[in-house]
């Protein structure tokens, strides 16, 4: 996680602890819309059992750390995706699961399909596949947790920093 200088001095002793905690527990919001959502459900089932990694699915954005966009997003769904993302508390992460969420998948040429959710929300992990296997989703989640443990910034933070820098440059 990236914080400004003042806060850094305050929380420095805690930062390691926070990063460690974020590296060992990840509560994803179930944002399943289509076929990929079935594979997302599967990772919670007995064979794949994500509970053992500290990954528990939440139904409320208020309780979730990360949003798994599992499935196709179309123009009608796009504002709802944004709304739920905005309702999540920072720090928050997004996994674009499946080719649809990454880039529109098999429907990329269509008249109603969002070609990649990164147009709407900042994406931390791009997970391709149609649908990706459950093992792949577990890998994506673990990668995200490893990054957190190492204290790496999230896509949302990088995006915010980018916006700040652009604003600053504009004032120069």
């Amino acid at each position, binding site marked *: 996680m990236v914080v400004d200088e003042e806060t850094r001095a305050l929380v420095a002793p805690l930062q390691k602890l926070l990063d460690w905690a974020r590296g060992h527990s990840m509560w994803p919001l*179930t*944002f*399943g*819309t*289509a*076929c990929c*959502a*079935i*594979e997302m*459900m*599967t990772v919670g*089932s*007995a*064979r794949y059992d994500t509970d053992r990694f500290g990954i528990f699915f939440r*139904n409320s954005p208020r309780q979730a750390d990360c949003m798994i966009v599992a*499935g*196709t997003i*179309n*123009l*009608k*769904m*796009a*504002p*709802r*995706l*944004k709304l*739920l993302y905005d309702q999540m508390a920072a720090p928050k992460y997004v996994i674009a699961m499946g080719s649809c969420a990454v880039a*529109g998948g*098999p*429907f*990329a*040429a*269509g*008249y*109603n*399909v*969002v*070609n*990649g959710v990164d*147009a*709407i929300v900042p994406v931390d992990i791009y997970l391709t596949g*149609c*649908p990706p*296997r459950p093992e792949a989703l577990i890998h994506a989640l673990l990668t995200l947790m490893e990054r957190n443990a190492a204290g790496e910034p999230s896509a949302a933070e990088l995006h915010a920093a980018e916006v700040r820098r652009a604003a600053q440059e504009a004032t120069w």
Partner: protein
Amino acid sequence: MTVAYHTDVSPEAILAGMPSAERPCKIGPGRIPCAHTTPGELLDMLRQLRDEHGFTHLELLTAEEMQTASDDDGVGAEPGVRMVYGLTRRSDRRTMVIYVALPDGALEVPSISSLWRGAAPLEREVFDLFGVHFNGHPALTRIVLRDDFVGHPLRKSFEMPEGGVSAETVRAAAASHGDAHLRADGTADPASIPGLDPALLPCPEPGFETERIVVHMGPQHPSTHGVLHLWLVLDGETVVAAQPTQGYLHRCIEKLAESRDYRACTALLDRCDYVSGFHTELAHVLAVEELCGIESTPKADFLRVLFSELVRITSHHTWFAAAGLDTGALTPFLYAFIDRELILDFFEEVTGGRMMFNYFRPGGVKDDLPPGAAARMVEYLRTFDRAVDEYEALLTGNEIFRARTRGVAFLDRVTIADYCVTGPMARASGVDIDLRRDQPYAAYDRLPVRVALGEAGDTFERYLVRIAEMRESARLALAALEGLPEGPHVSDGVPRTIKPPKGAAYRAVESPRGELGVYLVSDGSAQPWRLKVRSPAMSNIHAAGPLCAGLRLADVAPVVGSIDIVMGEIDR
């Protein structure tokens, strides 16, 4: 009331004897009788067919762009749209198709929602995608696309966005809800919600301090089984009215199919009903085979049955898991998904995919079973009943589950006919329909199909019927494996590029949700002119309105769960 229909009168004879039926013909290689009529005569004609001749089931309501170049089936040369109405007589399962040609500039036809209430959402879909106006429709607004969408995409003149929807359009779309039934602050504007009676809104008892409120349920809700959206009018805890809306997963499948070749369409259709991809594939492949006059091999027929039944089991697994979750039980999910994985392993071994198979091909199936697979499947299926016994031990006798489902949300036969409900939903109310037996396809005519039938029609009965279907499916799959004939898995001489002759075909299969059909129109080229999927779940979910009225809010989730929907197939 029982009416004796003259079922010995063939649909051809009926159409020939009707003055309003012009140009009687047959679509497909002579299978489905059809006729043309005018907008003015349509209502009377359909009413007569329904009431006097027993064509009570509205199987298909869609439209297609007129093929101006073609003249050989007498199709008008004027550019425009033609409406397609498919009606079925249950007694002998004969289907007929009525066409109404509408030239551009006069895209108007009377709404038939007074005959079948289930026609209303289907007409809204045609309005949305083709721009046809339905006079007398109770609430004609867009149903799948955003209200601020411009154009009617299934028209051939619609310009597809170059390279797909641009990021700017997406950002603009994400910034506004584009829903005419929401105010700018996101709250509902109840008076404008299609299908909701505004008269319901004021509380009937003056002086009593309650207020009726409108609640959105979905499209992102843990218990709506996908991106279904329900408008609920609540009086305290009681649901006064419920109105499903859809479109949150419209992925342009039918339009994209028009630029794919016939084989490539199966890949799109796998993603249509993604919980039981084999069924959508099969309906399409059967329609292609019919159009081209291709025969599949006996072995392929049996393999098609085998995989259709196995995927029905996995689909019911998903439903069973949800049935538990909806009533507060997590264990059924864990149990069902253990067995689901075991079957997915077979799919993966044979087709290479866990959910997206692309396995059925015109003329047969892609690959034969790998060595040893049949024996392992037989071994698994022999013990399958024990797994279902375990499921039943979890829920069937469970006090809480019974209390939540027994006597809740009765579905009667009138509503079933009115909303064109099919599948386990209808069978749980004692409507004895099952295409596997009534209109056998693949190898079902060579196998002992037993139909699981219920009577009561409540949520619990729908549960029991699906449980029984799982056992039956395992039995059928086993029978298909044991009777698997020798020989090739695909017939010779299927051309590399499939170019069916001009014409149309409609084939339906019994999917886990009901009668899933594919209506395919060929203009003689290598891509379909029109590919329409008849979605059973779409008809079924719109019966949720009458089903949910009067229930408690907490019962809505289990009841919607008992309809067993897949949004990919509803929205397409």
